[in-house]
């Protein structure tokens, strides 16, 4: 046995856990698991420097440490705050945290196009999940939502800036996984956006991973897009002997019958990839013969929709409650009454690509 390390005792929502010094509150909570894990829209454990930006993971430190028991004056980002010995944290037991989180969700949705019915990410979107759990019933924002010119970033990846929440994950990914980052955050404040400035395509064998890290439908797979809604597809674990030494070759194939519609990395229950895959595996290996199938993938996400249900569609109650760890689901909004894009007079299947709401207005 290695030398015994002193562990820190932490209490989160009155549940105790012992973790190594240097662990963040968020990761300590993940060690406990379940309901008390704060939602994280920007933090990504595999990306150095990520986190701190979206503010969905705010928690209250009610006791700083054994040595200095004073509470922290402000809510802190649990993804970037490390634990101290004896620290006590309130997440779902703090009305203040719940209130603040509701505020953050409202801010995140303020300019969001709510074009879920035509978004490829629907069913896998963390913002959708978040708004189900913490969102308000309706929007209080009475102004025109922000729009961006649509920009092209190549033939493999689709960028829909209106949906971006500026989590910076894709920027860290390009920085840390590829030789030369070609996209970044342009502009500032409310009009900051992800882009390449001069139109060019992202071209690097690992850049496709930005699709997997994007928590929303801002970066999606063009080679897949709109062919099918994810919940109509069967997910199977598969692998292949990949030539690229940095690629783990372990993927999830999204299939219907014998047809491979999409290839992604394998994600854990927090929506993070287990390991990175290369673009060859992701975009070019769409033949079932390329792969060794391991078996059906257990989608262990607490997304309501990932279970194959969608707003307005009949939801079998028991599954919902089960995936929400016993809590009753709360609808953020009825997309049919709020969305400009989901109009009964428009046949969604006739629309080419995951269009922005403007495209609908043209009709």
């Amino acid at each position: 046995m290695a030398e015994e390390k002193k562990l820190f005792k932490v209490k989160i929502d009155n549940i105790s856990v012992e973790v190594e010094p240097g662990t963040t509150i968020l990761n300590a909570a993940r060690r406990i698991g379940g309901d008390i894990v704060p939602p994280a829209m920007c933090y990504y454990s595999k990306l150095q420097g990520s986190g701190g930006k979206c503010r969905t993971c705010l928690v209250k430190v009610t006791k700083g440490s054994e040595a200095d028991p004073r509470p922290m004056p402000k809510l802190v980002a649990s993804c970037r705050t490390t634990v101290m010995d004896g620290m006590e944290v309130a997440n779902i037991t703090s009305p203040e945290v719940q209130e603040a989180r509701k505020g953050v969700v409202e801010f995140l949705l303020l300019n969001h196009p709510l074009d879920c019915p035509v978004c490829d990410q629907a069913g896998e979107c963390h913002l959708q999940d978040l708004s189900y759990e913490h969102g308000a019933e309706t929007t209080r924002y009475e102004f025109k939502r922000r729009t961006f010119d649509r920009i092209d970033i190549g033939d493999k990846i689709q960028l829909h800036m209106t949906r971006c929440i500026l989590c910076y994950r894709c920027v860290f990914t390009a920085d840390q996984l590829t030789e030369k980052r070609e996209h970044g955050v342009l502009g500032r404040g409310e009009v900051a956006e992800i882009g390449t400035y001069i139109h060019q395509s992202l071209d690097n064998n690992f850049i496709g991973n930005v699709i997997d890290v994007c928590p929303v439908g801002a970066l999606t797979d063009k080679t897949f897009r709109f062919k099918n809604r994810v919940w109509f597809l069967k997910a199977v674990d598969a692998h292949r002997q990949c030539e690229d030494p940095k690629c783990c070759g372990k993927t999830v194939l999204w299939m219907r019958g014998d047809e491979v519609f999409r290839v992604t990395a394998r994600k854990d229950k927090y929506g993070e990839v287990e390991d990175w895959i290369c673009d060859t595996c992701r975009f070019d290996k769409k033949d079932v013969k390329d792969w060794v199938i391991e078996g059906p993938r257990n989608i262990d996400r607490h997304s309501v929709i990932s279970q194959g249900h969608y707003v307005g569609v009949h939801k079998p109650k028991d599954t919902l409650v089960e995936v929400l760890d016993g809590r009753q689901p709360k609808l953020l909004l009825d997309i049919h009454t709020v969305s400009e894009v989901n109009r009964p007079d428009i046949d969604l299947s006739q629309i080419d690509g995951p269009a922005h709401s403007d495209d609908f207005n043209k009709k």
Partner: protein
Amino acid sequence: MFSEEKLNKVKEIIARYPAGKQKSALIPVLHLAQEEFGGWLSAETMDYVASLLQIKPIEVYEVATFYSMFNLKPVGKYVFEVCQTGPCMLRGSDNIIDYIKKKLDIGVGETTKDGLFTLKTVECLGACGYAPMMQLGKHFREHLTPEKVDAIIEECRVKAN
């Protein structure tokens, strides 16, 4: 491309930072480039700056689009940047902006047809006690009145000829 003299200036700027930290020179070099290449930063200019500092072009775009003093589109020869924040507003900056609009027959953000003047509104420039004010090139013009604005416009016209 920078002249020999400007290239020396770039070298001098880079020398202010420890070895390997030449990216720190980015903002000063962009200022230099904007002055040198027509008052704005084209994609080509930014790529050139990236190559000078041996950084990726996207690192330059990220910075150039963040700071409000960098123009990403061509502007008039004389840019009137009138402050409109609280302290200036209290001293009548709105009237000055209206006056310039009428006088030059342009809206905020527009350039006169002869390409001489651009009108911009900006946020506090640190001259609140000398309001209303505007920035014109390197300098501040303070305690503005319609008469002063007339004189400034005249001065620019003369200089341009």
